[in-house]
């Protein structure tokens, strides 16, 4: 079996702000294999964005990243200095963000921006770079790449801007792409286009993708595996269809059960009561316990570890009962 491309063990991100420590990511263990699309799903405050940022060592200060293992293709990311990490970013691991309008520099043309990336990561001369840039724009499905090359970001629609972002991210020919809510700001038909594009790129380039999202539908449609986060911890992980059709963790079950389903128009939905803890105010024991229908006494004192059951992992003290039962 091939070694995973990205290996993360016990990732923690903490912010020390004004004398208080806020643990935003509390021990996440994941891996990404070549050519795989892994979804990281969670609601606001789950820590999913920071997990993605940590993979590129882009966590803003005063955030501190620690892990027992954080390697990319065998390279220890925690050990790298700034120059080392900068060499990796864009060249081997890349990232795209939610709002393309704010991620693109408004005062430079698209062509200039792609050229900038290419000049950092390749040795091509000016003309070769232009050819390469146009090829990238074609690859992401932009019609009339010559024209797009000379336009400014604000002249493009949201969907086209996101395609440009993807082109920029792939300019250095990376092996991993971290996509943080890439379609949240887009219309649903444009979203379908972008997700189809990502899948095509995965197949054509052997690209591995981490898709961070709060939209279970998007994840269901695109990802091979999914990891669900709650209050900074990983609560369930496994093959997408398995996790979403037969969730094991009580949070996953409650969340999926509360979703709108066709064929039950106007019927009351099953509600997951209460609300998640704010970062920094997480109680002892299991973070989900206060809202959990399966809670028992020890859930308030013991912190659940991630336990593996074949291809699935669940972090619940009563996990055995769940999966054996299923």
């Amino acid at each position, binding site marked *: 079996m091939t070694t995973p491309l990205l290996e993360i063990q016990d990732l923690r991100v903490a912010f020390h702000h004004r004398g208080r420590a806020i643990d935003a990511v509390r021990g996440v263990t994941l891996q990404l294999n070549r050519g795989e699309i892994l979804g990281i799903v969670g609601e606001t405050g789950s820590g999913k964005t920071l997990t993605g940022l940590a993979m590129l060592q882009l966590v803003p200060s005063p955030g501190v990243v620690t892990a027992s293992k954080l390697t990319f293709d065998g390279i220890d990311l925690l050990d790298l200095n700034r120059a080392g990490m900068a060499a990796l970013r864009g060249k081997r691991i890349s990232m795209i963000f939610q709002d393309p309008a704010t991620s693109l520099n408004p005062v430079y043309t698209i062509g200039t921006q792609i050229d900038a990336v290419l000049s950092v990561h390749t040795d091509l001369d000016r003309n070769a770079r232009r050819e390469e840039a146009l090829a990238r724009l074609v690859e992401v499905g932009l019609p009339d790449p010559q024209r797009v090359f000379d336009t400014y970001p604000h002249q493009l629609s949201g969907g086209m801007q996101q395609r440009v972002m993807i082109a920029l991210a792939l300019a250095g020919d990376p092996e991993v792409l971290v996509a943080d809510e890439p379609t949240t700001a887009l*219309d649903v038909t444009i*979203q*379908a*286009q972008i997700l189809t594009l990502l899948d095509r790129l995965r197949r054509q380039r052997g690209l591995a993708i981490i898709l961070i999202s709060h*939209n*279970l539908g998007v994840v*269901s449609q695109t990802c091979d595996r999914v990891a669900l986060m709650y209050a900074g911890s990983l609560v369930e992980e496994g093959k997408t269809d398995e996790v979403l059709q037969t969730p094991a963790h009580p949070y996953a079950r409650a*969340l999926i059960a509360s979703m*709108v389903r066709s064929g039950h128009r106007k019927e009351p*939905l099953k509600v997951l009561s209460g609300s998640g803890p704010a970062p920094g105010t997480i109680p002892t024991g299991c973070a989900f316990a206060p809202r959990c229908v399966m809670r028992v006494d020890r859930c308030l004192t013991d912190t659940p570890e991630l336990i593996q059951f074949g291809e699935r992992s669940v972090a619940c003290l009563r996990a055995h009962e769940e999966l054996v039962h299923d």
Partner: protein
Amino acid sequence: MTEELLSVSGLIKEYRNSSGAPIRALDGVDLTLSRGSTLAVVGESGCGKTTLARSILGAVTPTSGSVRFQGEEISSLRGSALRQVRARLGFVQQNPATSLDPRMRVADIIAEPIRAHGLVREGQLTQQVAELAELVSLRPAVLQQRPMELSGGQAQRVAIARAIALRPELIILDEPTSALDLSVQAQVLNLLLELQHQLSLSYLLISHDLDVVEHLSDTIAVMYLGRIVEKGATEELSRSANHPYTSALFSATPSLDPAARRKRIVLTGDVQSSLLDMQGCSFRSRCWLWEKLGEPAVCAESQPLLIQKSSEVLAACHFSEQVALAAPSGFNET
């Protein structure tokens, strides 16, 4: 037969773009909403649904056309006549973080409509506000807090309490759950359904989320570039569309069902590309059906009219019967 609660006809709203050319945000919209029911207006950016909502609320004056509410023409009202009508309309906005004044206490936010129309003496106000809080399941302690201290779900409930404060007959909901976390959406949707039942409310739901639309609405109107391209009963529309845009929308909505995955229609281009092409049907340049049928000439010649296709549905397409047949079958099974 009694007149419908809300009836919009021939509504046109024209703007001028930077080069002076006219752009129609609304290009002849006809809709009706019956008492006690929910009409959803769906579409993507640039379709005109927001302009439509604003025209009904009086925030935007239409270029021409009529909006009749409770039997009264409201599209040209100004000043105090408009204020009177506004007392009978409720409005819930998308993001509760920005739709509530951060400096006001929840109790004052909910009381604002009542105070604005001077309907109740200060003494009785406390009781009314307490009743409203209870209707939306807000604990009394929340009344003294400020929006920043509330969770997303609580804040949206405050917005809903404010919208029903004067017991309006019609509430306009602009993407009421889009800004909320998944686990909270169910709470708010349940509340909206319950209130509709309890207070005999009618809803005009503006949304791009087809799952929510299917769940809440009785009728759906699908808009594209300022026109309604299809409208009819939710049940029927979701089972089989009569306009290629409708079927594309439903198909593009991601679902958890693995079976739905294989059958996606992916449109090419975007709204911008449609604008460049003003001859004939405004959807043509992105229309998958037009391609599939070998690019029939009629689509480039005339804009299809919105006509009755079945007892429950109207659609604006020259080939609407083909839509259900040609589309990948069975999106959103019941």
